[in-house]
């Protein structure tokens, strides 16, 4: 209960809430980073602490999607929403733009990028616009203009990407949808897949497809736990009235396993999941369904649905240090600590300039670096 207890202690100290000055003597504060829109339509990268104190407000050229925290430096990266043409790496301690990375000619980003564990590189999913092929690139932060590595993702429309726990394998969600700008061109024939690539050679180690009947379940967002199990948030592109499972689980060497919520919950999820995150134990996964105003929870040890919590337009998710406890953000400016086992959520106290934001689809939670 790291976040919560610390915050509550501060709350009990009364006025400390209002100032919340960081002190060198205290453990590193917990920071939350996310892209967000203000009501005037501008796009920002926001970093705040868990007390609602704003640390960074960086203006972005276009709407962003994923946000990644650097492992060793006080930097966060905001990745442009697809079709994306920038990745801003920003220092949250001095608000300086460290890098604005742009795709090479004929390419665009797909909304997600991750730092390498040593912090020297950045992997990003891209589209090659001539061939329509999905690509994944590695850039060094020392010289980010040109990719050092550039692999095929073995699919169309690569979206979120992960590294395996040992760092040897890239896991890519090939959404399967061929796009022109934001127009979808191949909904009838789309073939989403989950691909595992060797980080050094780009060799395709394993690729999993859904059954033919389920080919319109786009594989877009996911998370991986220490066992290498991948939880997947699906988005259904078929008819509005179909009733498909919306979550999948994958273990290396096995077929994709579709997980279904109870009938009424599955329908409420409105065919659309936005984000997936494991908790700190790696056993419980949260999957948000923002169009259905629901966040669902799954027990991967038992391959089953656990429970759900209502959250209007709630999409962004992050694990806290405490098992089974998550943070969620919403398009309506709210952030919550979620306690699914207790069927309880607690709003974070946010000042007006933060609670009037529309938090975008993904958030990152990490300890501040000096």
């Amino acid at each position, binding site marked *: *209960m790291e976040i*919560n207890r610390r915050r*509550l202690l501060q*709350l*009990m100290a*009364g*006025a400390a*809430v*209002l100032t919340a000055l960081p002190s060198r003597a205290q453990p590193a504060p917990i920071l939350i980073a996310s892209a967000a*829109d203000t*009501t*005037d*339509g501008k796009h920002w990268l926001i970093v705040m602490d868990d007390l609602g104190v704003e640390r960074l407000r960086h203006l972005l050229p276009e709407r962003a*999607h994923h946000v990644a925290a650097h492992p060793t430096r006080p930097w966060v990266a905001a990745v442009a*929403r*697809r079709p994306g043409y920038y990745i801003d790496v920003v220092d949250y301690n001095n608000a300086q733009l460290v890098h604005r990375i742009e795709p090479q000619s004929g390419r665009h980003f797909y*909304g997600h990028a991750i730092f390498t564990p040593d912090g020297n590189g950045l992997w990003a999913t891209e589209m090659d616009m001539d061939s329509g092929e999905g690509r994944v690139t590695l850039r060094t932060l020392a010289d980010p203009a040109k990719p050092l590595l550039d692999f095929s993702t073995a699919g169309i429309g690569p979206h979120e990407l992960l590294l395996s726990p040992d760092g040897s394998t890239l896991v890519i969600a090939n959404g399967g949808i061929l796009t022109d700008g934001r127009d979808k061109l191949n909904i009838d024939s789309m073939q989403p897949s989950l691909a595992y690539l060797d980080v050094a050679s780009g060799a395709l180690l394993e690729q999993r497809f859904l059954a033919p009947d389920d080919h319109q379940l786009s594989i*877009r967002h996911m998370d991986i736990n220490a066992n290498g199990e991948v939880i997947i948030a699906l*988005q259904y592109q078929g*008819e*509005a*009235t179909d009733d498909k499972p919306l979550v999948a689980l994958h273990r290396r060497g096995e077929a994709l396993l579709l997980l279904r919520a109870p009938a009424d919950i599955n*329908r409420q999820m409105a065919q*659309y999941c*936005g984000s997936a995150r494991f908790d700190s134990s790696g056993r419980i996964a949260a999957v948000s369904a*923002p*169009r259905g*105003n629901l966040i669902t929870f799954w027990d991967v040890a038992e391959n089953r649905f656990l429970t759900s*919590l*209502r*959250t*209007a*337009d709630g999409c962004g998710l992050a694990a806290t240090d405490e098992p089974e406890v998550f943070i969620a953000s*919403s*398009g*309506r*400016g*709210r952030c919550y600590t979620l*306690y699914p086992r*207790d*069927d*309880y*959520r*607690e*709003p974070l*106290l*946010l*000042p*007006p*300039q933060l*609670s*009037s*934001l*529309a938090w975008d*689809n993904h958030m990152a939670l990490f300890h501040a670096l000096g």
Partner: protein
Amino acid sequence: MKHAINTSLLPTLAGASAIFLLAGVIHINHAAAQSADWPAYNAETLQEDILPRYQHFASEASELADAGTALCQKPDVQSLEQTRAAFRSTLNAWQGISHIQFGPVTYLMRNYSIEFWPDRKSIGRKQLRATLELPADTAFDDEFFHQASVSIKGLPALEQLLYGPDALSRLQQETTYCRLTQAISGNIADMANGIYQDWQKNGEQLLAASSDGGEDETSSADIPAISTDLMKSLVEPIELIRDTKLLAVMGKGPDATYPHRAENWMSEQSLASIRANLDAAHDMFTGSTAGLAQLLRQRGEPDMAKAIEQQFQLIDDHLEPLGDSLTAALDNHYEALKSITDSLKVLDVLLNKAVQSLDIQLGFNSRDGD
């Protein structure tokens, strides 16, 4: 409130929240939306907008069901015309309340069942053809509608039956055709009545419980989620009218239009439906004691209220002379339609600004996603 921590610390949280709000006023000089009486706004919208409009829809649909029954007893030109007239009135009533996309209309997927549109793959037409080929003794009863595709449960299927080629001779010669026409009319009446009853029974409760799950007393964004839902119901349809109901049909120019993409093109009610949508939005904006216009004036924004009022009026003035049929207007008034889409864009921007000035974060629109 099962969570032990919450129970023990609730008073602490409430106290901290009060300090926080006070601090917000002092430091940010920001009266926020506390001045708006949101419960009154919600209650008025229920009493003066939602309930009367659903009542009107239910009563028109009940007449439609009667007309459908009479039509099958004596299928002649006169009874067909009477049923078509009842269909248009029912459609018009539906278009006057279709902006509410939360609450009872979503139960049992009634929103999709009443009007499955847009139907990009012509599922309705295919389903209808297959249904008309069922054995002559097929019962079109509750059980049938329970199992049936949403595409043949409501207004679009009935429109095809009443306005399709050879409608009269088929009604006279094919018992299945006539019985299905009667049954769908009855089914629409049942759904309309069910929604009205549900709102009557549970409306107050729906307004009291926020769609966000409640328990938000500690959030600084002190606007009930249901108020945000209502504002969304006012603002969001404007973009839908412009993009889906007009621009998608207007194509790339007067020589490259798509008349069959229009809503209600068979009954030539496309523009009538748009007018009904806009009248509903206009009413919701004006309100009698607590509409958005009044909230803006209270907030010291009378010019904005006036500008929006004028924009509604301008669009209405330009739509009126074009008649009910979009197909006809595409041929004769393409430029006028183009200018109406521009005016709708202005209205959309103004409404979004208005909502912003009340510190309401509508979040991402319900079709947003990535």
